[in-house]
C-alpha cells in the first residue's frame, strides 16, 4: 500500500480538491479528501489508466468516468506504467538527443538532394506520354498568351532551320515516341533563348536565331539540347519533385512560421537549382552526343554557348552566385563539349 498526495479533479466539472491517493499492488485505488479524510473515489485497475507523461509534468491518472488525479510531485511515476513512458524516455534520453541533432540535418539533406529527386525520377516514367503532351500543349498556350508573340523571321529562314532540324531528328531515330514540334516566336522579355515543354514542344526565339544565323549547326546544337530535356522528361521530373518536396516540408515543419519557412524554402530552391544544373549537364551531353551521331562536331555547341554569353557580365565576378543559378557555369559547359570533340 502506497500513498501519494495530489489533486482530484471531478468529471466534467471545475470542482476539485486536495486529495491523498492510496493504491495497492493489485492496482486498487482509493482517494481521500485531504481536509476531512472522506472517501472521494474508488477504482479498480481496469477502470483507470496513466496519461501520457511529458517532461516536467505530473503523471496524471485518468479514470473511466472522466475524473483525473494529478500527483503533486511532478517527478512521481506510477510503478506499472513503464510502457506508457516510452516516449518520455526517448525524449529525455541524452544520447538519443545528441544523435538526433546529428542525424536530423543529415537526413533532411539526404532527403532533399537524393531521396526526393530519386523518387520523382522513378515516378515520372509512369506518366503516359499523352498526358505529358496535353500538359505541354496547355502550357504552350499560356506562354503564347503571356510571354511570346509571332516570329518576325522570314519564312525561308524558318523553313531552312526547320528542315535541317527535321532531318536531324529523323536521322537520330529517337525511340521515345514524342511528336516534336518546333515553334519560332519573338519575345522581348526572354531575349536570346530556347526552351522545351513536356511532350516535345520546342520554342526558339528570333533573337537567338539572329545571333546564330550564320552557324546553322549551332542552332541545331541548341535545339538538340532542348530535345535532351524532353527525352529525359526533365520538366515532369521537376514538377513531381516540387510537389513532393512541398508535402514533405509541410509535414516535417508544420508549425514553423514566417521567416523560418522562408529560409527553409530558400534552402530547398538552392537544392532544386543544383538538381536543375544536373539536368542541364544531361541535356548538354545529349546534344553533343547527338551531334557526334550526326557526324557533326560538338564544336557547334561551343559556338552556340559563346554566342549566347556574348555581352553578358563575366561569371567569375561573383562565384557564390553559382549556387543560385539554374544552369552550370558556361566555361564548364564549353570545356565538357570540347572534351568530346577529341575522343
Amino acid at each position, binding site marked *: 500500500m502506497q500513498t501519494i498526495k495530489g489533486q482530484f*479533479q471531478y*468529471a*466534467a*466539472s*471545475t*470542482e*476539485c480538491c486536495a486529495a491523498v491517493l492510496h493504491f495497492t499492488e493489485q492496482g486498487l485505488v482509493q482517494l481521500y479528501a485531504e481536509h476531512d479524510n472522506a472517501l472521494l473515489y474508488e477504482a479498480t485497475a481496469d477502470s*483507470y*489508466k496513466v*496519461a*501520457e507523461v*511529458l*517532461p*516536467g*509534468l505530473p503523471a496524471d491518472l*485518468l*479514470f*473511466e*468516468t*472522466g*475524473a*483525473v488525479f494529478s500527483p503533486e510531485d511532478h517527478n512521481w511515476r506510477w510503478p506499472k506504467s513503464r510502457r506508457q513512458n516510452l*516516449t518520455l524516455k*526517448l*525524449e*529525455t*534520453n541524452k544520447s*538519443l*538527443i545528441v*544523435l*538526433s*541533432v546529428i*542525424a*536530423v*540535418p543529415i*537526413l*533532411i539533406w539526404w*532527403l532533399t538532394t537524393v531521396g526526393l529527386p530519386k523518387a520523382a525520377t522513378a515516378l515520372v516514367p509512369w506518366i503516359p506520354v499523352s*498526358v505529358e503532351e*496535353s*500538359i505541354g500543349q*496547355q502550357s504552350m498556350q499560356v506562354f503564347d498568351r503571356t510571354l511570346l508573340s509571332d516570329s518576325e523571321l522570314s519564312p525561308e529562314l524558318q523553313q531552312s532551320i526547320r528542315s535541317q532540324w527535321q532531318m536531324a531528328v529523323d536521322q537520330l531515330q529517337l525511340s521515345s515516341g514524342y511528336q516534336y514540334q518546333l515553334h519560332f516566336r519573338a519575345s522581348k522579355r526572354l531575349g536570346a533563348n530556347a526552351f522545351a515543354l513536356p511532350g516535345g514542344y520546342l520554342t526558339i526565339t528570333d533573337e537567338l536565331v539572329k545571333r546564330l544565323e550564320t552557324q546553322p549547326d549551332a542552332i541545331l546544337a541548341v535545339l538538340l539540347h532542348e530535345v535532351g530535356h524532353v527525352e529525359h522528361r526533365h520538366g515532369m521530373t521537376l514538377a513531381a519533385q516540387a*510537389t513532393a518536396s*512541398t*508535402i*514533405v516540408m*509541410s*509535414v*516535417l515543419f*508544420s*508549425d*514553423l512560421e*514566417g*521567416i*523560418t519557412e522562408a*529560409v*527553409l524554402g530558400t534552402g530547398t530552391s538552392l537544392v532544386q537549382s543544383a538538381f536543375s544544373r544536373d539536368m542541364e549537364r544531361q541535356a548538354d551531353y545529349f546534344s553533343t552526343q547527338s551531334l557526334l551521331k550526326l557526324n557533326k562536331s560538338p564544336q557547334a555547341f561551343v559556338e552556340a554557348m559563346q554566342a549566347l554569353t556574348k555581352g553578358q*557580365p563575366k561569371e567569375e*565576378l*561573383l562565384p557564390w552566385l553559382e549556387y543560385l543559378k539554374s544552369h552550370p557555369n558556361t566555361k564548364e559547359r564549353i570545356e565538357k563539349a570540347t572534351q568530346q570533340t577529341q575522343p
Partner: protein
Amino acid sequence: MDMHGSAASTEVASARRSTVQFSGRGAEFFGIWIVNVLLTIVTLGIYSAWAKVRTTQYFYGHTKVDGHSFRYLATPIQILKGRIIAVIIFALISVLSTFSPLFGLAAALVFLIALPWLLVQGLKFNLRMTSYRNVRFGFHGTYGSAFIYYLLLPFLCIFTLYLAMPWALKKLDHFVFSNISFGGKKFEVNTKTSNYFKAFFIALSVAIGLGIVCGVAAAIAGFSMPEPEAGVSLAILLLYVAYFGVFMLVGAVYHAMIRNHLFNSTLLPDTAELHSNLETVDLVWVTFTNMLLVLCTLGLAYPWTKVRMAALLAKATEVTVYPAADRLTDPLQQNSSAFAEQAADLFDVDFSLT
C-alpha cells in the same frame, strides 16, 4: 449554470487575480522537439501527428491559470486522419491542375468556398480538445458568419482601399472570441473599433518607416558593388530578406496592441476576466531576437524561441477568477472523458497541416 447561493458582492470580493504561469523549459522542449523530428523523418511523416500532440500537450500542461493547467485531449489518430486527407487532397489538386489549368481554377474556387467551413471546423476541433479543470471549451460560430467575417468583409475592404480593414479585423476577432464558450457560458467581447484603427495606423507608420530605412540601406549596399548587375542582385536579395523581417516586426507591433485591447475587453460572465499588459517593445524584441536565433542556428534554436515566446505571453497575462469558476459544470459534456476519447464522427479531425 451551477451557482451556489452566495450574494454577488461576496463573489466579487473573493475574486482571485493572478498572473498566468508558464513552466516550460527550452532545454526540455528541445529534447522533445528534436526526437520528434527524427521519429517523423524515420516514419516518413506518420509520427508528425504524435509529435503535434506531444508538443501541444507540453505547452498546455506547462501553462497554469489560477494554479490549474490546460489539457490537450486530441488523439494522434485524429490528427493523422486529418493530415492524410489533407495530403491526398493537396496532391490530387496539384497533380490535376498541371494537367488542366481550368481544373486548377475550379479547385481554387471550391477551396475558397470551403475555407470558412474548414476554419470553423478547425476552431471547433481545437477548442473541444482543450480542457481546463476538466471542462472543455467550445466554439459556436457558423459557416455563414465565418464566410462574412473571413471572406466577404476583407474582400469588400478592397473597395475602401483597405481603409476599413481595422473595422473588418475587429469584426473578425469579435466573431472568433465571442463564439468561444466554457462551461456553458460564452465569452463577452467589448472591443472598440477606434483601438483597432489606432493599432493599424501605428503599425502602418512603423512599416512605412522601416520600409524607407531598408530601401535606402539596400540601395547604398547595391551602389557600393563594383558591377551594376551584381549591385542589383545584392539589393534585391537584401530587400527580400528585409521584407520578411519588416513584416514580422510590424506584425508584432500590431499584435501587442490588439492583444492587450482584446484581452482587457473580454470576460466570461460571472466567472473570469482576462487582462493583458504586453509591452510592444518586449514583443518586438523577443520576436526579432527569436528570428535571429532561428536563422543563426539553421532552425536548431526553434524550441527555445517557442518557449521564450510562451513565457513572455504568459508573464504579460493575468486572469481574475470568481468563485463561480470553481463550480462550473458542462451541461453538454457530462459524459466526456479523457479515458474513452474516441473519434466521434468523420469530421472529428483536424484538417489543418499546422
